[in-house]
């Protein structure tokens, strides 16, 4: 089993790198999800005063 260390190191590096890239994508995904929540809250804050004051606007959907 000469040079087994090189073989083991190669495959370890390949899978660690792929795992790290998946973790990086995951992290970005959670950041985007928190951005979506923040935007939803902003949108709610924008539309709520109108729906409280205006009878005609209360049933209409907010446009982005």
């Amino acid at each position, binding site marked *: 089993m*000469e040079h087994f260390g090189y073989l083991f190191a190669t495959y370890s590096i390949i899978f660690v790198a792929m795992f790290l890239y998946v973790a990086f994508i995951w992290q970005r995904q959670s950041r985007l999800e928190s951005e979506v929540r923040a935007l939803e809250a902003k949108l709610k804050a924008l539309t709520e005063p109108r729906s409280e004051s205006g009878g005609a606007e209360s049933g209409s959907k907010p446009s982005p």
Partner: protein
Amino acid sequence: MARKLVTSLGVLSLILVITALYMVFEYVPTEADEGIVQRIFYFHVPCAWIAFMAFGLVAVAGIFYLWLGGQIWDDLGHAAAETGMLFCTLMLVSGSLWARPMWGTWWTWDSRLTSTFILWLLYGGYLMLRVMIEDSRQVARFAAVIGIVAALDVPVIILSVRLWRTIHPAVLVTRQGGHGLQDPRMVATLLVSLTAITVTFAWLFLVRFAELRMGTRLAALARGIALAEVRSGDI
């Protein structure tokens, strides 16, 4: 539908990678000249193939971006460049780990290695450009041009073993024609590894692409909300 496709690709990728690993470590016979270290080849070659394909995709996306100008082409090129860079790095690292016991050195300025390193640097520059400059339209234009120019290096890398004197082995298509894999089990292992890495690339690429599209839509939505906030403040 898209979520199902991504999940299916992820599961398929896992199954194929485990199968490929089994074949690399258990099924395939040890090569007579190089010994056990030759088994690096079964993931090194697919990583190279995927990196070249990804950079080809960057160039195609760049051409379409310059021609049609849609943000989708920029996102496509960005996702392909990032995923391609991962596989290009893995190709260089695995090649270096193979070279140490075979050539007695981690690196040599051979024509194929040098042209591959240039490709890695070009796409490294492409990705750094995206991180460093804020103006997204300007970055997209520059990135499209760099992506197209950098892809011209791919045929140079592929043909380098035929064009120049090089110590890099030509296993898939030898200098005499034909392929250098003596055993059918070696060919089968290479094909399974190639499929496994291709499906893994497709999965990673689709996830990253979907994320970039979502980011683009969110940025547009945030701009719309900010504008609405300003207008409601004026009233």
